[in-house]
């Protein structure tokens, strides 16, 4: 009982209702995010339809190994996140497990960012930044890289927020400042994390796979 009241917030009277509202709220937000990234992907689609060769040529210049490894990292982080949130919804004693999984999730997120950092470094060295001195001759190949930097940048910002949220949960949970079992915040964070992952799942074939076949 006292546990439940610890998690309860204004204006709610019952934790169950509050949890439902939180979950519903985050899903609405995710729907909003879907349109956010949807609009970016639409931009990509239109540019690619108009310049198929430039996109193929530009896509070939990306480093598929960084991309694939990073995808694998994120997919794994989704696994640990899923386990954390599903375990926290159970009745048993799960604190250690949840903490460990959350920690792993955050670590994988950081790993992704590190790999991404190396990739960015390589891109800059290969002059794949649009503007003067751009490596490819077709002007429209710059469109691809304009979008590349933007999309991966926006994704990285989302991921950073995600990492911060997870780290917060780990710290608070480890210090027993909040109870992780049944925590609406954990559930909400997990859903956000998975969405960021879904976005990357779409970015992977669009960024790293064009132009490989020729």
């Amino acid at each position, binding site marked *: 009982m006292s546990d439940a009241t610890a998690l309860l917030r*204004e*204006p709610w009277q019952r934790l169950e*209702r509050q949890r*439902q*509202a939180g979950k*519903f*709220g985050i899903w*609405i*937000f995710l*729907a*909003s*995010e879907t*349109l*956010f990234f*949807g*609009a*970016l992907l*639409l*931009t990509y689609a*239109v*540019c690619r339809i*108009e*310049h198929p060769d*430039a996109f193929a040529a530009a896509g070939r210049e990306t480093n598929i190994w960084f991309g694939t490894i990073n995808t694998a990292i994120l997919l794994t982080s989704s696994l640990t996140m899923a386990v954390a949130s599903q375990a926290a919804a159970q009745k048993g004693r799960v604190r250690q497990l949840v903490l460990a999984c959350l920690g792993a999730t955050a670590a994988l997120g950081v790993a992704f960012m590190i790999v991404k950092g190396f990739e960015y470094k390589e891109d800059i060295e290969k002059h794949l930044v*649009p*503007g003067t001195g751009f490596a490819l001759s077709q*002007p*429209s190949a*710059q*469109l691809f*890289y*304009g*979008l590349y*930097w*933007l999309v991966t940048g*926006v994704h990285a910002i989302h991921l950073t927020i995600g990492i911060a949220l997870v780290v917060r949960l780990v710290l608070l949970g480890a210090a027993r400042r909040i109870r992780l079992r049944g925590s609406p915040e954990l559930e909400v964070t997990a859903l956000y994390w998975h969405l960021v992952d879904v976005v990357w799942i779409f970015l992977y074939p669009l960024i790293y796979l064009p132009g490989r076949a020729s």
Partner: protein
Amino acid sequence: MTDAALAGELPFPPRPDYLRAGSTLLSWLASTDHKRIAILYALTITVFFFMGGAAITAVRVELFVPNGWFLTSDTYNRLFSFHGIIMVWFFLVPSIPNTFGNFLLPLMIGAPDVAFPRLNLFSWYLTLVGGIFAVYTLVAGGVDTGWTFYTPFSTMFSNTHVLTAAAAVFVVGFASIATGVNFIATTHMLRAPGMTWFRLPMFVWSIYATSIVMVLSTPVLAISLMLVIAERWLGLPIFDPVRGGDPILFQHLFWFYSHPAVYIMVLPAMGVVSEIIPCFARRRLFGYDFMVYAIIAIAGIGFFVWGHHMFVSGQSPYASLIFSFLSFVIAVPSAIKVFNWTASLYRGQISFNSPMIYALGFVGLFTTGGLSGLFLASIPVDVHVTDTYFVVAHFHYIMVGGSVSAFFGALHFWWPKITGKMYPESWAQFAAITMYFGFNMTFLPQFVAGYLGMPRRYHTYPAEFQVYNVMSSAGAAVLAAAYLLPLVYLMWSLFHGARASNNPWGATGLEWTTTSPPPPHNFDLQPLVDRAPYQYHAEGESAGSDAPEVQNARSLR
């Protein structure tokens, strides 16, 4: 009315109302009470309304003569751009949803607050940050892209403060999304026992539909502006035609938001009118369930028509045909609304208090503006009148004649509830009527000027259009005066107005069952709902001839 008489007899409520629960600045700026946040919003948008109005006043003065007389072209362009940006994103989009929606939504569904009170406060701060960006833009020298930010002008050619202007809108967009999420969750999760979906007042439905539009369309605005910022600031090519970018793509993204956004601006107004008309006609709302379906239909179909802003843009003619057809389709649910409001007057007991005048004004002006929308939806006609004053007249009819009227209607209707004070009725009626005439004087001539070929965003214009511009500018002066009146007498009423009773209009609706102003948590007892809204008379009867007090005693128990 008998309010003045009643006022003395009302006992003071035993506990402080929300206005008196804490009087430090912090108790306002850190409050999570939806009613206080509503007041914060109200102050903010009032400031912005007058800023936007002042900018366009200068424009109207300049347009008195064909070749301008006190502004440079650059200043002119910055003024109308500022006007559009401020009026749309800092006044009209947040106007009814964030003030009245915030204030009334929990009250109307019998909840103590919105679902996420801290998010609610956060969203106001976002609006404020956006507003600071906007004001900074103005102070630093302004922006000259128009409110539409068309590329490649905005990305490569304008040398004004596009970045901060776009950032302002970007930030305020997130305030919209946050508010939308909050309201949707509130409507789903916090309805009082017995408050089923089909017992919701129309205003709640309209806010709910508006929130859905906000949540699903605003992110696309964010993206379109982010792309502009990225291209202009970071040099990432997206729309640059030299590098194969597609400027029309920007228009698609922009209008994917901005057409639904016009329904963000009008749906809440429709909700307001659907509350006022039954109350002052003492009639049930005609065809309640159809009104609900219509509002949902408008919100949904509103997403499918954006291309009607692009008939001459170089968009494919096939796409234009689809968009044209869908634009006609969306007029059907709008027609349902107009006819139902009209039918709600039938066999009523109509009194013409100022909210009712505004509401009736809304119906007429919205219909006029909406019908002109059908001209624009017909491709050959639009080809001729697009980007002329015909379009300017069209949207001011709906946004100013319609939505702003409804905003003022709401302000007067709920003023007693919000402040606990009555305003001077005859001044209010006078202001409402002046506004109506000033408005028509300003914008009716613009239809003609537009048809004759006067393009919009024109600092100088061919001399034959001068007649229309002079009429329009004269009307704008009347309109400005009419807008200043409420500012004065409403302020006055705060200090000298009679105390308002809980339900001065004899209206149905949960917000009228609590005290005026309401206590911090809205209701002393959890309300229970056992009937549909607008029970002004028994089913199948028409409005009775008794005084509203007597009727209320019967219908409200």
